[in-house]
């Protein structure tokens, strides 16, 4: 009886092992770490704040804040199919039926929205890796600079996988493995700007003066764009001693989204919606 039980257990483990083994890629591809010496890296210490608003295409901004500038700015070179998707999202936005996914709390900003957030940032750099930390969210973007390559079978996530290197004082990295708007829970801004799961980017970050970091993203997307989309974001340095804090989005979120209408609600003191829209 006991021997039968052991044999059965062994059999089950073997079967389960075989099933788990299917589709398994390399765990950690071999590579020889190579890094830039720490004393060769620039000083990006302190807290930083994105300059400008969080809407990429300001020509689409209506309502609060108004249309600041006429004309098209940072509008992605969409093909016809994705321009139609964007216009549909804009129309929903105008009816207050295109909620910002952030409003529900819990999903990362992803790339490239990672560089399009309010509230301060920190850029922590080390020879082998750099971390970009946003208070809003919070979000973290990891950039490996130790010579490793992307996984050949990288799956898609919000922020993707970033590997890069230093060119003097400029951090250069490639980001792949982005899910884009595939699941409907990742947008670039609250106008409804979206990219597809074929999007990927090359980013260059450098300090253009003591108080300004410049982030230039070149985004390609064979499914949604007709040519590379180049977006520049600048970040100004905040006063020395500036602190960053928790961003517990779900701590007291009184603006949940009504799943039936897509409208953003405002909860009164009794927890019931005031139906503001």
């Amino acid at each position, binding site marked *: 009886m006991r021997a039968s039980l052991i044999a059965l257990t062994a059999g089950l483990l073997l079967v389960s092992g075989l099933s788990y083994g299917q589709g398994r890629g390399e765990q950690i591809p071999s590579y020889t770490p190579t890094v830039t010496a720490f004393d060769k890296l620039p000083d990006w210490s302190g807290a930083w704040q994105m300059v400008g*608003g*969080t809407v990429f295409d300001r020509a689409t901004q209506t*309502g*609060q*804040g*108004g249309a600041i500038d006429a004309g098209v700015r940072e509008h992605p070179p969409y093909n016809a199919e994705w321009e139609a998707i964007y216009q549909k999202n804009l129309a929903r*936005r105008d009816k*207050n039926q295109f*909620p*910002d996914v*952030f*409003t529900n*709390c819990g999903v990362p900003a992803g790339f490239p929205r990672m560089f399009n957030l*309010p*509230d301060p940032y920190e850029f922590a750099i080390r020879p082998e890796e750099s971390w970009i930390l946003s*208070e*809003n969210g919070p979000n973290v973007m990891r950039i490996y600079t130790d010579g490793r390559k992307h996984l050949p079978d990288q799956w898609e996530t919000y922020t993707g996988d970033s590997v890069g290197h230093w060119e003097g004082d400029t951090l250069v990295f490639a980001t792949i493995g982005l899910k884009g708007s595939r699941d409907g829970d990742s947008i670039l801004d*609250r106008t409804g700007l979206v990219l597809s799961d074929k999007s990927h980017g090359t980013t260059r970050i450098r300090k253009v003066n003591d108080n300004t970091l410049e982030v230039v993203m070149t985004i390609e997307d064979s499914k949604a764009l007709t040519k590379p989309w180049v977006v520049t974001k600048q970040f100004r340095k905040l006063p020395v001693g*500036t*602190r*960053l*804090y*928790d*961003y*517990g*989005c779900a*701590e*007291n*979120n*009184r*603006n949940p989204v009504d799943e039936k209408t897509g409208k*953003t609600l*405002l909860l*009164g*003191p009794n927890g019931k919606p*005031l*139906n*503001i*829209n």
Partner: protein
Amino acid sequence: MKWIYKPVLALAIAALLGSVQPAAAHHSGAGFNSGKIIELKGTIKEFQFKNPHTWIQVLVDDGTGKITEWSLEWGSPNQLGRMGYRPSTFPAGAKVTVRLNPVRNGEPAGGFIAAKFEDGTTIGRWDDKVSPSAATP
């Protein structure tokens, strides 16, 4: 007592651009009427100094003894904390006059603009040059 006044558009835009914008970080501010500013006199019930946005709960007597609780949304506690504000900024029981952009449907809520305490201390973008031009119950 509720005072409503309609400042010129430029003033409203300037107020929006210059003040802490609670709706900018977490959700759209489309529900707030940025073209209207309401002034209320009341008593602080609670200052919810929590993420993602702070909320100032104010009890307002309409003059007949009916008390309404208003919800005023402000910036994130992180943002406000860096500006020097604290959970104690609005102590419970304090008498206060507040200005806000009300929600569009008349519910007792809005985006906080500024406040003045009984001792004359002000919070936010209080502008004494702006006077109520009309009053409603």
